């Protein structure tokens, strides 16, 4: 059951990545495109506590590295860092409300942008990201909007497929 849930979420992430690289790009014309995979990642970091969550984060990072064309390991590092951070904060934040989920995704997206900029500067990558803070905030805002689309769906999917974690209780 746990394996089935893992595979399902892995496929979901893959499909979302494909959609993000095609349909979402067309719809948003590449401007303020929400990074839906990050939303799933943070969701997993908040609600998953097993090794399967870690594997998913690594898989998402790997896939995004393949699709993005950046140096391999860029998103692997960013995603695993954000995942552990989300897991660390999940017990301290009151995430029952949608508002807090939006705020959390916004914060994590912004943090991801900062890490990406730092990595690009660190290696003097030619395709280094812009350090424009307003752009980072705007992209983080777009990701936060993605919460409204994905979190309800992910919650439903998790209750249907995933083994309920022992550490979390659904009321």
């Amino acid at each position, binding site marked *: 059951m746990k394996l089935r849930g893992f595979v399902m979420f892995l496929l979901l992430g893959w499909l979302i990545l494909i959609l993000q690289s095609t349909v979402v790009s*067309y719809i948003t014309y590449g401007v303020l495109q929400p990074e839906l995979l990050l939303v799933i990642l943070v969701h997993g970091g908040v609600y998953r506590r097993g090794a399967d969550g870690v594997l998913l984060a690594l898989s998402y990072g790997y896939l995004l590295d*393949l699709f993005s064309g950046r140096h391999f390991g860029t998103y692997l590092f960013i995603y695993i860092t954000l995942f552990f951070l989300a897991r660390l904060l999940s017990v301290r934040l*009151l995430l029952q409300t949608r508002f807090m989920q939006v705020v959390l995704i916004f914060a994590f997206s912004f943090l991801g942008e900062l890490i990406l900029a730092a990595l690009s500067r660190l290696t003097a990558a030619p395709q280094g990201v812009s350090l424009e803070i307003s752009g980072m905030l705007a992209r983080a805002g777009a990701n936060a909007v993605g919460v409204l689309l994905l979190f309800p769906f992910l919650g439903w999917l998790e209750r249907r497929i995933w083994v309920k974690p022992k550490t979390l209780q659904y009321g």
Partner: protein
Amino acid sequence: MPVLMLTPISRPAPRRWLRVLSALLLIGGTLTIFYVNAKHPQDLNAFDRTVLTLSAPLQRMATQAFRWADGVWFEYVALVDVGRENTQLRSHVQQMQNRLNQLREVDLENQRLRKLLDFTEQSGRPFRTARVVGYDPTSHYRTLRIDRGLEGGAVKGMAVATAQGVIGRVLRCWSQYSDVLLITDPQSGVDALVQRTRARGTVEGMGSAALRMKYLLRLDEVQEGDLVVTSGFDSVFPGGLLVGTVSNLRKRPSGVFQEVQIVPAVDLSRVEEVVLLESPPPPAAELEGPPRPAEDP
């Protein structure tokens, strides 16, 4: 919707440290992978290529599906709005066209009134303007109805003209309206001159769109195209108003007079504004009485 209850979990300390250590190792490991690849970029391995090979067809399908849906939307569904917009634009164009026509009418009216004003200033007589409100219901256009009556200063017998020429005279008037007898009516008569030769005669209506000039002496030189103007001797019309153009000559083999046919200077079926000219004091020649020869036998 179930409410998520988050509770801190207490675990044995060694296991928690193990988890923290694992996390740090993973983070450090991925950072190392990144750093190594940034310094020495690696080509895609077989697994990478497999993942991308599997992904590419799906990407192509998603793109094609979106383009198809996008095409359907913009070529069919969105045309509903285009149709509505087209209807609105047509209506808007129609309104603009009507407005433009109104402005053209105002412009034409302005031009006519300006000519009328110039004409009345040249005539040197007090005048009243009036607007045509109705035509003779028959097809002969023998009378006009104007929107100036007794209250507006109209008097029976006043000369009525436009800048283009003579119209007729006031036949009857009441409080706010008057009827004008057109020069084309057989009962109408205007003392006139052939402008070029100063030959004098009387212009009468024929009951149709044409006029005839009577009492022209046979010896008077008249030819087609000559302009006929008012003489000013009849105490109704001021001198020099255009009556019409000679269109046909009819000389009898015998007799004293000749008769010519005249095309009115004004298209009486299209008159819109007119001026009513007050009658001048009769000239001395008029007081003595103009010679009126007898009808040609």
